[in-house]
């Protein structure tokens, strides 16, 4: 009952005019960001962070704005999947399989309505999952000492590398690259400069926001330049038609939505999996369970409902480890973590104790935002369809310029802009080489904490290495880390999302 009381307090925080407005703006922007191919949740949130930060928003409103964008993007991604057969963002890839055939059969309106409804169901129940699971996880996290935290960070990198990427060596390389970047600057514990080559700008280290915007947003611009894919949807957009689905169709898809919500939520909570895997697993299982007449892939409404419930539910699930442990489960939650760190708030058990208003205000705002999103995505969906007509040759320059504005707004430093460009080019090269970007971001974000906990553990035990494996909790975390990293090598390609193998590998926008 404590939980419900906290949630009620949260609603008191969220129900101010300012926060409601921010949730509304966030949902609206998020749906647009999700719908536009080339802008996904992670780079959309990435370019908005510096702005939210420089506008001087306090923690709760800033978090409400950005998580609304995150939820909104999960809704929006389906629009271009269904109408154009181009996923608006990576998690919406599975929605193209049945969504576009439905649109071609003249049922675009029904497909949009069913998927919107499925998104709502997924996000709604996942937010309830967040309400009840996060406090439980916090109880476990309170038992963690420095050694356990260090093991937890290793676990996050290991599962990210094992489950979500195709090549463990490259994921490991990406992770240490990020950790290496995090070590640049003055060492927090002894005050000696490291890897700064006497450059004053490097004494503070590299700002993770600069790295994130460069890697996620600017590299996208380079990808588009490379392909000179400047065209827009132009006239390929299918007529939407009626947006009210027949009741029979809704009833048929309810079991699919329910199952997918559960699968998606689990995929979201697992560190390193995220929404793309959530929608992939949901679609695959749903196909296995209910595809009796071979209608999947030809415009089966259940094939639209499953991945959408799955990815929205995974988005809620991914917030659980981010808020309760400070370890993000996906690319976008990593970006959200960056914003919390920029605001000097460390997520984890202490956040729940010291700033319950932030956590519960956010969760309440998610409930409210979800209802706003349902309203925007059913009756008003044709508004967003029009946004799809903006050609990327106008959109991408705007994205690039807004990235510059955001970073310039934080520090007003030319050096930071140059570093961001360098990260943009680096991000492009790494994408070409199929090196995942999320572990880099996670490394840059968590490096400091990871080293601090390691050294604290060593200080407590006077430099005795074996103490890292001294408790059952730590041993458990290490075993999971090893299993998570090694299992996919043995089990082979079963668990790996075929998503990336099939298409858009290089253009893939981490969710």
């Amino acid at each position, binding site marked *: 009952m404590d939980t419900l009381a906290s949630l009620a307090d949260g609603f008191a925080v969220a129900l101010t005019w300012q926060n409601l407005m921010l949730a509304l703006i966030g949902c609206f922007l998020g749906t647009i960001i999700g719908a536009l191919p080339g802008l996904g949740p992670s780079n959309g949130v990435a370019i908005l962070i510096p702005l939210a930060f*420089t*506008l001087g928003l306090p923690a709760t409103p800033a978090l409400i704005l950005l998580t609304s964008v995150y939820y909104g993007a999960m809704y929006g991604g389906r629009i271009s999947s269904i109408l154009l057969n181009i996923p608006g963002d990576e998690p919406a890839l599975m929605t193209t399989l049945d969504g576009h055939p439905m649109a071609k059969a003249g049922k675009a309106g029904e497909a949009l309505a069913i998927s919107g409804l499925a998104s709502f169901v997924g996000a709604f129940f996942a937010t309830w999952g967040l309400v009840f699971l996060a406090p439980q996880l916090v109880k476990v996290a309170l038992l963690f000492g420095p050694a356990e935290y260090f093991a937890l960070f290793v676990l996050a990198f290991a599962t990210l590398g094992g489950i979500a990427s*195709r*090549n463990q*060596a*490259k994921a*490991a*390389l990406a*992770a*240490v690259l990020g950790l*290496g970047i995090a*070590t640049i600057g003055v*060492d927090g*514990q*002894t*005050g*000696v400069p*490291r*890897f700064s080559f006497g450059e004053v700008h490097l004494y503070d280290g590299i700002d993770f926001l600069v790295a994130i915007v460069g890697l996620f947003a*600017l590299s996208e*611009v*380079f990808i*588009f*330049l*490379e*392909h*000179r*894919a*400047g*065209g827009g949807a132009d006239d390929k957009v299918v007529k939407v038609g009626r947006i009210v689905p027949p009741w029979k169709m809704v009833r048929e898809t309810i079991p699919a939505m329910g199952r997918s919500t559960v699968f998606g939520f689990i995929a979201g909570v697992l560190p390193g999996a995220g929404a793309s895997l959530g929608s992939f697993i949901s679609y695959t299982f749903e196909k296995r369970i209910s595809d009796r007449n071979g209608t999947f892939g030809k415009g089966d409404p259940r094939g639209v409902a499953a991945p959408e419930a799955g990815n929205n539910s995974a988005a809620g699930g991914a917030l659980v480890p981010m808020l309760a442990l400070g370890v993000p489960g996906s690319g976008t939650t990593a970006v959200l973590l960056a914003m919390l760190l920029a605001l000097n708030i460390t997520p984890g058990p202490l956040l729940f104790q010291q700033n319950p208003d932030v956590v519960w205000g956010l969760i309440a705002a998610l409930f409210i935002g979800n209802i706003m999103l349902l309203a925007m995505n059913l009756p008003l969906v044709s508004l967003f369809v029009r946004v799809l007509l903006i050609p*990327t*040759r*106008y959109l*991408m*320059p*705007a994205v*690039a*310029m807004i990235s*510059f*504005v955001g970073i*310039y*707004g934080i520090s*007003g430093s*030319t050096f930071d*802009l*140059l570093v961001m*460009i360098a990260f*943009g*080019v680096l991000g492009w090269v790494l994408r*070409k*080489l*199929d*090196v995942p970007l999320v572990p880099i971001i996670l490394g840059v974000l968590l490096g400091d904490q990871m*080293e601090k906990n*390691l*050294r604290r553990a*060593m*200080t407590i035990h006077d*430099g005795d290495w074996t103490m890292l494996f001294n408790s059952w909790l730590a041993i458990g975390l290490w075993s999971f880390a090893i299993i998570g990293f090694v299992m996919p090598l043995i089990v082979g390609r079963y668990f790996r999302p075929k998503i990336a193998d099939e298409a858009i590998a*290089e253009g893939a926008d981490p969710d």
Partner: protein
Amino acid sequence: MSDRIFGVFGFLLAAFYLWQATQIELSFISDPFGPKAFPYMIGTVLAISSVVIILKPDTEPEWPGFARLFEIGVATAVMIAYALFLKEYGFVLCTAIAASYLSWRLGSHPVSAIIAGVVIAVGIYVIFHLVLGLSLARGPWGF
């Protein structure tokens, strides 16, 4: 082949990183672990994963032709110039030029690219500076 080159590059980076880590000066106060140990761990993992990539490269990515690489190079140069000139000539002018260039290279007709660039620059200026009060680079003319 690309992966092998990348692996060699990663290995050299690891070597450089480890060498730099040995150069970290210790201060007179220190914890038992010190500021060097974590970088050593990172450098070692970097070296190992680079070697694995050299030994087991993935299939070759599709590199764009020289023309497209040149395109990306020039775009990078334009962005660098943008960063350097931003404080000197102010936000609106620099942004209009950079955005027009990018829009043109992404396939817009030159005239519509210029219009797009100006609209983007003025639009951002109005929304972020005038409405939201974000500080942008001031040029000689105050905008």
